[in-house]
């Protein structure tokens, strides 16, 4: 195992910065429209539901459900070659927002659609904490 984290890292600056800062602090932060109260992610200046410009970032429940999943057998980056087959889950949070992520501590054959999951904060580097999920 190498000391250098070789997998792709998300851009943690820009509009999504509060999401990544929240993850480092162990919180699942989402942008919420102050006009229509809809949550959204990724971040945008205008609310896709009402085009309102006023928003704030709020800590959310971190709870969600597995909508579907798929198993990668092809490594699109060399850094994933040691992980295949690995699974990506589509999670719908209680707040309605969806995310692509991974489950931790769940063997592949135990992943099920409809599984209830909660956010798990995975500090992959000093600067970046990814939001993964646990049952």
């Amino acid at each position, binding site marked *: 195992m190498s000391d250098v984290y070789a*997998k792709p890292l998300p851009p943690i600056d820009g509009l999504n910065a509060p999401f990544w800062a929240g993850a480092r602090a162990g919180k699942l932060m989402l942008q919420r429209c102050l006009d229509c109260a809809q949550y959204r992610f*990724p971040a945008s200046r205008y609310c896709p539901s009402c085009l309102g410009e006023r928003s704030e970032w709020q800590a959310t429940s971190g709870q969600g459900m597995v909508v579907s999943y*798929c*198993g990668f*057998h092809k490594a*699109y980056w060399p850094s994933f070659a040691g992980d295949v*087959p690995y699974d990506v889950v589509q999670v719908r949070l209680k707040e309605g927002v969806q995310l692509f992520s991974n489950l931790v501590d769940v063997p592949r054959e135990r992943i099920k*659609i409809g599984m209830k999951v909660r956010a798990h904060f995975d500090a992959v580097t000093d600067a*970046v904490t990814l939001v993964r999920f646990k049952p």
Partner: protein
Amino acid sequence: MPNKSLAGKVAVAGVGTTRYGRLPEYDPYDLGIWALKEALADCGLKIADIDGVILNRIPDYQRFCELAGLNPSYTTITPGHGRFSGICIQTAVALIATGMAKTVALVYGNNGRSAGDQYGGATDIYGSGGPGLWFPYGMTSPGAFHALMAKRHMEQYGTTSDQLGQVAMAFRRHAALNPQAVMRDPFTLADYHASRFVCEPLHLLDYCLINDGGVAMILTNAKRAKNLAKPPVYIRGFGQTAKFTGSTFPPDDYWAAPMKKVARSAYGMAGAKPADMDALMIYDNFTPTVMFCLEGFGFCKTGESGPFVENGRLQLGGEFPTNTSGGHLSESYMQGWALNVEAVRQVRGECGARQVKDANLVQYMTAAPVITSMIYGKEAK
């Protein structure tokens, strides 16, 4: 909303295709010009007869028209996304119906194979929600997006890998009858299962090809089309609707709601119903989208596409011969264009060993964030 006044008013006069496969000596402009020359020869028109140009996937309209000797009255260019084939054809109908152009050339050139196109990895933007947002989790590629939908369909309705395999096998059998197809060796269900998973539950044989090629279509008004080299193939009906909201993620309904809207429009215009279709051309980027179209357009009930595709129903000689050219899975990945050309050739009766007997009505359809459908007919109404 069906616009019956447009039904049968515009016709496909000429179609042209290049060879398919690996053509490294041709760039996308060359491939487009090659296809356009074939389409002009097909209908007996000259470059000077073209007064409208719609380009797809070709990098630059000015350079293309300079190379092709075109000075049209209307020019536009669209991105190389498969959903645009249907959009472009419908735009051509509108231009001709309004008199903005009399004879429109639609030209597509794709050197994806030689250019080393990758649909997944660092350059992937399909439904990404922003550059690189999901890469840290290993999420990338249109294939994975459709694998997620396929997995959910399987758990929700009991659809099986065997049934997806039936779709892929049917199209390969058709390709075996098509000299132009890139992949012509038939395979068994055992071969299908033995093909490696790319993104589970999808095997390599559930994925479309990546290859080079070009396609062109020439459309004109029905009256003019009658006096050209080939019999007109009439555009009897069409429809289009988008589902962009929330489209970073697979839709819960496999696009059924927007497809129903498009179906109402296309069938309403054509005065026909699914059972009237003699052959189907379904945008097969991956096998599951064939299933979603069969459900969304009303060929079978919601969730029943799995059993529906069994027993050779989509094969030549079956109830709904589908992708008789081999489609994107086995003929060529021409992003919908070659399927529209195959529809025209079927209606004309030019398909040789793979010809559907009495193909009077043939429907093209696609499942994606833009859903389009076209119905082609031998008669104007």
